[in-house]
């Protein structure tokens, strides 16, 4: 089955082509069903490939399928090839699985939109690009997918492009991502110049064999990290992601929470042998950037009132945790958190989409409240997602976050304290959101007029096709922790380290690397501490927002994201703009001037030459005669015969 791995991208490609050709005719909702069926097909193939690989001995769990020679240019030989190994198949499983659920949700959510079929066209194109990204056997194929998901992200953020803010947000995401792409491309060039190939096996093989110089490895790792920072919205390039919430909510769930933004984490995991041989400061840098992002975004999330903005900053924060894990050498934990996060954050986003839908496109949490009475299923599933992200055992987020914290303590106690503090903030702002939306007082009645519902306004529960994905994702968010339970003494062996064993030959950095640290010795204690922190955050938020015992502190500086975005905007609008104008002027005057000048010169010359074209036969004969004389002169005199 692993040799049929090309079917995974083939299904969404087929869907893309079919919707491209017949999308209008299929219309609403048939185009949505078609798109969903295609993604389900990919998921089934991925499951088949998974069982195929599981059945093999550990060393043989990698299969390369070469479709064709893509770039055959002397030394640069790049194949359009897919690599089916535990990492890529694992990614495919959760990408296609969650994408399928989100497709289903979108059928209900996008119902009635005039561009319904186009939405699913883009979604299928996105899934195609994403699986190409994770299945790529070399950096170039991954880059193809990388650019593809970036394009789809742009198209889908500005899906409602008649909205000024949506069009701007799409452009912002695209331009910001170019910075990251620049890093990715340079890394690719550097990798090719170092090992003469862009395939992962060659690159990682050189790193493992020790033939990759430390400086080269450092360069590749840092440049790929730059690419990852752009794609995964880390400091200093995070600011496109909150704006990306302008896109339809299923897009936020699929692209800007579950899959695309985790591409950076995947990429760094894929090249982990290169990071291992790079300079020591590289992992530390990655860890600090991740940690700073996690803390920064968590503080901003404290003061957001837009239901999706809270989740957006929360996503940035959780991605920061994943980079913290990578920097700490906890690749398995990073992938683990990526998977659990995909489940619970997709759940939260879809839940928020259900709320927005039920509230007739209202996104301001201050105008919600007490919705659990009107939307029981949405509320129940959202609460499971909340408990998972807050880190309450036994929900999935607890296990993955706990593992990251463990590795963080092993790396540096300072980081651990900051990470723990961030975990408290996470629990706090998520509790705040749940209270503002589903509990407390209903504040929407006074705003009913604004929603266009004249007189009668009542939030409503969403349709079954939207609720089904919520329920499935809630179940996953609750139990996904079982794929990688820690080795606590009371646990049966069969439940431990499932994910680590699965990823083993690819990622050598399991818990075995930190067994001699005090952190490892006290991991039971750490789990209790983490739980206590989560509960503390929740209790604090309940006191502030539910019981109103403590006055809420939401300074404007947090609501404005520490003025970071604004500063960048004013810089780009001021000195940046001036610099761009100067470049444009240089292009117009000097570059174009040279071209136009040449054109004018040619034209002037032509004007002169054409004077010889008199239209008189005698003139023409004279020119021919002159040619004859010159010709004879050359042959007879020039060659020295006479």
């Amino acid at each position: 089955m692993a040799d049929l791995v090309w079917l995974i991208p083939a299904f969404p490609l087929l869907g893309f082509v079919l919707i491209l050709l017949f999308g209008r005719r299929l219309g609403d909702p048939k185009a949505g069903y078609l798109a969903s069926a295609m993604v389900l097909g990919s998921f089934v193939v991925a499951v088949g490939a998974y069982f195929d690989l599981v059945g093999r001995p550990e060393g043989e769990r990698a299969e390369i399928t070469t479709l064709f020679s893509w770039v055959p240019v002397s030394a640069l030989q790049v194949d359009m090839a897919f690599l089916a190994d535990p990492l890529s198949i694992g990614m495919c499983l959760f990408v296609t699985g969650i994408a399928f659920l989100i497709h289903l949700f979108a059928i209900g959510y996008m119902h009635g939109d005039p561009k319904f079929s186009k939405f699913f066209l883009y979604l299928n194109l996105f899934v195609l690009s994403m699986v190409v990204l994770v299945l790529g056997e070399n950096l170039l194929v991954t880059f193809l997918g990388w650019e593809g998901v970036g394009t789809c992200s742009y198209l889908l953020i500005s899906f409602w492009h008649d909205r000024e803010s949506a069009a701007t947000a799409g452009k912002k995401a695209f331009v910001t991502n170019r910075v990251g792409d620049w890093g990715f491309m340079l890394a690719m060039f550097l990798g090719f110049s170092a090992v003469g190939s862009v395939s992962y096996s060659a690159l990682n093989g050189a790193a493992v064999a020790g033939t990759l110089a430390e400086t080269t490895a450092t360069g590749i790792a840092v440049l790929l990290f730059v690419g990852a920072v752009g794609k995964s919205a880390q400091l200093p390039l995070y600011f496109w992601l909150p704006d990306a919430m302008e896109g339809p909510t299923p897009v936020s769930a699929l692209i800007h929470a579950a899959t695309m933004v985790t591409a950076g984490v995947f990429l760094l995991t894929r090249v982990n042998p290169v990071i291992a041989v790079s300079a020591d400061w590289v992992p530390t840098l990655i860890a600090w950037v991740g940690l700073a992002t996690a803390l920064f975004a968590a503080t901003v999330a404290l003061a957001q009132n837009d239901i999706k903005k809270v989740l957006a900053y929360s996503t940035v924060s959780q991605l920061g945790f994943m980079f913290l894990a990578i920097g700490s050498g906890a690749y398995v934990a990073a992938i683990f958190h990526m998977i659990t996060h995909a489940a619970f954050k997709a759940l939260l986003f879809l839940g928020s989409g259900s709320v927005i839908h039920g509230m007739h496109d209202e996104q301001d949490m201050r105008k919600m409240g007490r919705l659990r009475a009107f939307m029981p299923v949405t509320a129940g599933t959202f609460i499971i997602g909340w408990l998972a992200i807050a880190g309450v055992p036994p929900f999935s987020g607890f296990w993955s976050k706990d593992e990251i914290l463990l590795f963080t303590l092993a790396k540096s106690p300072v980081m651990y304290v900051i990470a723990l503090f961030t975990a408290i903030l996470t629990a706090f702002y998520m509790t705040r959101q749940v209270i503002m939306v589903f509990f407390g007082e209903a504040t929407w009645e006074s705003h009913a007029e604004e929603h266009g519902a004249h007189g009668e306004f009542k939030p409503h529960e969403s349709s079954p096709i939207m609720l089904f994905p919520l329920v499935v994702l809630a179940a996953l968010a609750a139990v996904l922790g079982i794929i990688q339970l820690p080795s606590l003494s009371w646990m049966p062996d069969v439940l431990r380290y499932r994910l680590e064993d699965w990823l083993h030959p690819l990622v050598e950095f399991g818990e075995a690397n930190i067994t001699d640290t005090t952190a490892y010795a006290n991991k039971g204690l750490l789990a209790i501490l983490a739980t206590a922190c989560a509960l503390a955050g929740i209790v604090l938020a309940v006191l502030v927002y539910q019981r109103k015992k403590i006055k809420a502190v939401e300074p404007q500086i947090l609501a404005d994201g520490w003025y970071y975005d604004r500063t960048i905007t004013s810089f780009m609008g001021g000195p940046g703009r001036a610099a761009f104008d100067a470049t444009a002027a240089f292009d117009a005057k000097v570059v174009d001037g040279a071209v136009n000048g040449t054109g004018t010169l040619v034209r002037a010359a032509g004007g002169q030459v054409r004077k010889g074209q008199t239209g008189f036969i005698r003139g023409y004969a004279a020119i021919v005669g002159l040619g004859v004389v010159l010709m004879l002169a050359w042959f007879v005199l020039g060659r020295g015969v006479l």
Partner: protein
Amino acid sequence: MPQEFVGPSIDWFALSPLLVLLGGGLFLLVAGALTPRWPRGWYALASASTAGTAAVLSVFQWSIIDRDGPGTLVAGALAFDHFAQFMTILLCSAVVLVSLLCDDDVRGTDREGPEVFALLLMAALGGVVMASANDLIVMFLGLEILSLALYVLVASDRRRSESQEGGMKYFVLGGFASAFFLYGIALLYGGTGSTNISDIVAGFQAGVSTGREDALILAGVALLLVGLGFKIAAVPFHVWVPDVYQGAPTPITAFMASVGKASAFAALLRVLVVALPFHRDDWRPVIWVLALLSLTLAPMMAIVQTNVKRMLAYGSISHAGFMLVAFEAAGHRAGEADPGTGMQSVVVYLAVYSALTIGTMAVISLVSRAQGGDTRLTILAGLATRHPVLALSLTLLLIAQAGVPLTSGFVAKFGAIQAAVTEGSYVIAIVAMAAAVIAAFVYLRIMVTVWMSTAPGADRQMLAYVSLGAPADDADGDAADGDAAAGAAATSTSTATATSTEVDTTGAAIAPEAITLSTAVVIAATVTFTIVVGVAPGWFLDLAANVTNYAR
């Protein structure tokens, strides 16, 4: 004892392409004169099927040569080799396409009849004789058959004074050039003692060790080059081209640019590469200079034109420059066992350019006919909205002429420049690349008119824009057109220009052109060829690589 005349043994089948062309042409003339007017399209069908038959017969000859190797026919008068057959197929294919175009052009006019088609076949016969001549006198016969037919064809639209003017100019100047050619043969005969190419080569091989430079031979080569330089329209022997290409009926312009040019290049090859490889260091610098002049001057002149046929006329001169670049490369290796890729590039370029020019002229002809015979650039304005497919085809043919990759034009240009670089002729290779850029501007200008100018009322502004800010109502093209001081020869042109201006201003709304089947077939065929050769050039290059095995 009187010497007994022994007739040469004649391989009639090997001559069959020639005989079919001759028979078809004569049949059309005689039968056409003796019978009442044939039903519509039958004349064209007859000439197209005659040429098609000749092409198919030539394919058979090709396989015979594959088997038996090259040789000579009719006592050494004609060469029987791949090159001759390649050119025969090329010329006959061009006749098929041009016949279809002429059918549309003459239908419903007083030119309808067998004459044009008979002349097309005769011209092709002359071209085939030139391409397969193994004797300079035979070559001269072919040249004259071709030229005489062309003189009449150019002037065949006898109600249009531009056509008559073109025919007259071509005839006078052509006669002038033919005289040089003939005198060149005479001098060469004086120097070598023979007009037969095999004998000339044998003579050189015998006498080469003496290293003797014979003034007669060199002067003869010079004059032969003048005659053929005139036919291939290399600067400075190009002077007739703009006026004649513009004046001739558009399908005939296509015919001259394809059949006329290909035949002349074939003859040039026979004379220089086959007969005179021992003087290659004498004639190669001349080719170099002709290429340089053609490459630089022609695009410059094309830029300042406002008549689309005149632009394409200068374009054809610049294409001749490219072919000369490849020819110069072939000159480095003339007579050697390894001929290099020069000659292969020339014949590829000829075939590619013939298809491109016929296709382009087909579109121009169609559009021009709907607008009263006007051929200024403005007639193409708004074609994209009237006929998107036609506009797209024209664009494709034009970007191919500009040499954009994935079209046949790129394959041709690349081959020419690559051949030059391989032989170390870096200067003209670089000049050729720069010239391609200037030439591309000309084609882009046509495309801009086709796609970006919609309303006929906006033509003048558009024209001002596309001609780099020149006043739009500037005199058409060169001083030859609309020059107030022009004499008798030129006044007719200015009258025609004035008339067509009136047509343009009075007829504000342009009716969409009616696309006829035969023209559509021609456009489709040339576009297909352009793309197929552009995308998969391998088979065609392999085919063309055969031609360098000449009969001597």
